[in-house]
């Protein structure tokens, strides 16, 4: 198990290096000058070039890259150009918020996805299965941002049931209940697509597992259907875990539309804004953190996978 994990960790390192190179190059080829957007219309050319030099943005690209990566490895994510503050708390706070939203959406997506998938798989040929399939189909097809807007119109401003933006109330906010009220609408919007994907995949996994020979053998041993289903469910776990990892990763990197519309102060919103401001250190750190999270999630999934499935432990 330990060798298994260390092998996986070793495999993750080149991925992270690759991500760092890609993010660095991508950012460098995006037109736009962070200094210009930082200093605004009243800045003078001298002030701009001075700041450029001070931030080291006039150095050769490889030097910039190695300087950045060196600092990053030591945990120093630098200073935001646009926000003039340390990047680390900025990115970590945003990441924490995204994580909260992501986990909530993941729970929703899994609850709904497993339910829909199970119905679709186990009641094949029945109306309920057809309805489940239709729901999952719609949820993967729907344009997220328009659903988000409709939720706002009808559930936030229309009824006032839910707040329309942010994480907490400005006044008297901050409790769990407050957070919960704020997270419902963005959570639903973010969960839609993963729920559909999970439902569809879970359906096919259940069908696969239910058609495996050992299920039949259990039946021949007199096990009740409930017990058999339980064992079948156990056998869907490895795949389910993989799906879980992928969907979590997807959510982490993909909630940007939702964060924009609901003004959720998460990493997607932060990185998106930083792209518009060409705030290089924040973009770099944000992408690295989300890649790290992605890799970490995969690592956890692999570890769990190995715990559940003795065959992959070797």
């Amino acid at each position, binding site marked *: 198990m330990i060798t298994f994990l260390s092998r996986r960790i070793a495999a993750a390192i080149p991925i992270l290096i690759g991500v760092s190179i890609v993010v660095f190059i991508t950012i460098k080829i995006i037109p736009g000058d962070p200094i210009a957007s*930082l200093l605004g*219309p009243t800045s003078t050319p001298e002030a701009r070039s001075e700041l450029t030099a001070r931030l080291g943005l006039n150095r050769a690209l490889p030097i910039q890259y190695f300087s950045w990566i060196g600092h990053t490895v030591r945990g120093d994510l630098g200073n935001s150009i646009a926000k003039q503050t340390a990047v680390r708390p900025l990115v970590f*706070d945003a990441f924490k918020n995204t994580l909260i939203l992501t986990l909530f959406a993941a729970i929703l997506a899994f*609850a709904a996805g497993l339910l829909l998938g199970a119905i679709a798989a186990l009641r094949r040929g029945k109306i309920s299965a057809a309805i489940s399939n239709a729901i999952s189909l719609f949820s993967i097809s729907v344009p997220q941002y328009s659903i988000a807007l409709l939720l706002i119109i009808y559930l936030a401003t229309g009824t006032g049931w839910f707040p329309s933006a942010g994480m907490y109330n*400005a006044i008297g906010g901050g409790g769990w209940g407050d957070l919960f009220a704020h997270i419902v609408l963005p959570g639903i919007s973010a969960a839609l697509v993963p729920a559909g994907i999970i439902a569809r995949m879970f359906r096919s996994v259940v069908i696969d597992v239910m058609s495996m020979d050992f299920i039949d053998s259990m039946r021949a041993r007199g096990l009740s259907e409930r017990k058999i289903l339980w064992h079948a469910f156990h056998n869907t776990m490895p795949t389910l875990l993989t799906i879980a990892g992928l969907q979590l990763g997807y959510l982490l990197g993909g909630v940007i539309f939702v964060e924009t519309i609901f003004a959720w102060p998460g990493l997607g919103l932060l990185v998106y804004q930083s792209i518009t401001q060409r705030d290089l250190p924040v973009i770099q750190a944000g992408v690295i953190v989300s890649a790290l999270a992605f890799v970490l999630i995969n690592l956890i999934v692999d570890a769990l996978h190995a715990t559940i499935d003795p065959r992959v432990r070797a």
Partner: protein
Amino acid sequence: MPNERPAPTALPVAESSSAPSSPRRRPSRRNFLAGVGGVSLASVLAACTPGAKSTSGSGGGAKANILVIAMTASDIPLLDTGLAQNQGYEGLRFVANQLFDGLTKFDLKQGEKIPPVIPGLALSWTANAAATVWTFKLRPNVKFTDGTPWNADAAIFNFNRYINKSAPEFYPALNAAAGLTISSLKSSKKIDDMTIEVTTNGPLAYLPSNLTTVYFASPTAVKAEGNEGFGAKPVGTGPFTFVSMTRGQQLVLKANPDYWGGAPKVEQVILRPIPDPTARIAALRSGQVNWAEVPPPDDVPTLTKDGFQVLTNSYDHVWPWVINGQKKPFTDVRVRQAMNYAINREALIKNVLQGTADPEFQAAARANAAYREENNLYSYDPAKAKSLLAAAGLPNGFSTTLSYPTSGSGNMVPTPMNEALQQDLAAVGIKVKLQPVEWASMLTDYFVGKIPGNADMINISLSMQQEGFWNTWFGAGSGPNVGKYNNPKVQALFTQAAATLDDTKRSDLYAQAVKYITEDAPWVFIVDDRNPRVLAANVKGFIEPKSWFADLTTLSVS
């Protein structure tokens, strides 16, 4: 094949082929639902019910005497004096102007006239004849909110922070951020405890106006926290003091009861960054905020109908198309004028902007001191446009391109506005191709004097807030003068104005320049923004000034 990793993607996954439908017994669905589905359903239900309950009270989130402002900024601005500009001028308006004061300030407590410059932390000032050396008498008995007294030492400390590269407290980031405002400041020196002298690089008759946004921080606090750390615990003399900040979410300020200009009536001001206009209005309508900046124009009628206060007023802000006058056919002034005649500004304002802007027929904004009614040269006159085009040898019009920002501070609703203008121009034969450009990359090009995408024109909203902008936008050799406009007569008037201390005379000189500029039509003059904002019905006592800035001390929330 459950152990096979499905194609790993967030995208719909190629599901593993389902197994052959062999003649097998299906499991009893009842049991399964009880086993697996039941859990899921229960958790969904559990997740839903308390939600409905707990949120019912949140509609009244913004109650008590607290003002909650939805800003257009995408994040909380920096809290250190001039650095607040990092989220645009909105940072100065809502953060710097509330936490700090300048030597001078605008009179924002009225909405009828263009706010004059009035004493702030300075009681009075005088200048030498050349308008290069200024003496300021400081306001006595003012304390920073940490108790540090306001005096010449504090003032010089702050000037050093801005401009004195040899002083230990010099803060390069602040120097860079304050930009044009301080670029002509040469030095400052203490005369006595309550008098200081400021020297400029050249004649700068409008220095008092510039100094409204040179803010003063508590030297004690800056020394304690360091230049970099001060932004986390800002201390100023302003009407509000810092309470707390949640990055990306909100900034809480509370009233400074000892404010020298009169304590604010409201207890707290909470600033929330909500860059999306729809989201701002949603937050306002769902009661999360009671003040929203810049609503989508089309919401104005319904907001008014629903009892919200929609406030607008002219201010020094224009929304033009800047023409590259060096490109054909724009080298011909008749072509540029024709475009100014071809557009129906009133229809645009009525239909697209719902009255949130004023038509602009000259180079000066309505709320600019240089605005003169008689300089309104243009009108909606397509026939005249056509005849001008014909005279210029273009009876069938021509094709051209316009770069415009898709978003960005002050740009109003650029897409539908430009689409409407595009239709007007098409009517006289000018076919405009629209090239949307992302705001950040547009600025990069713009500030180095380029029009993005090599287009013939650029649409960008520009401020006239400071008199120095006249030269920035229209002065020969100025970078942001992307149209390369150059009229020696205009140039001479700008130089003369900079050395004219008398406000009225100076504005007359600018008005003359405006006349020339208007005739030369280096821009298509389109509209002046009216700075719309929406307040909940219970926000009382706010006066919308003819300014970008706002005074939050007069209002209260009931």
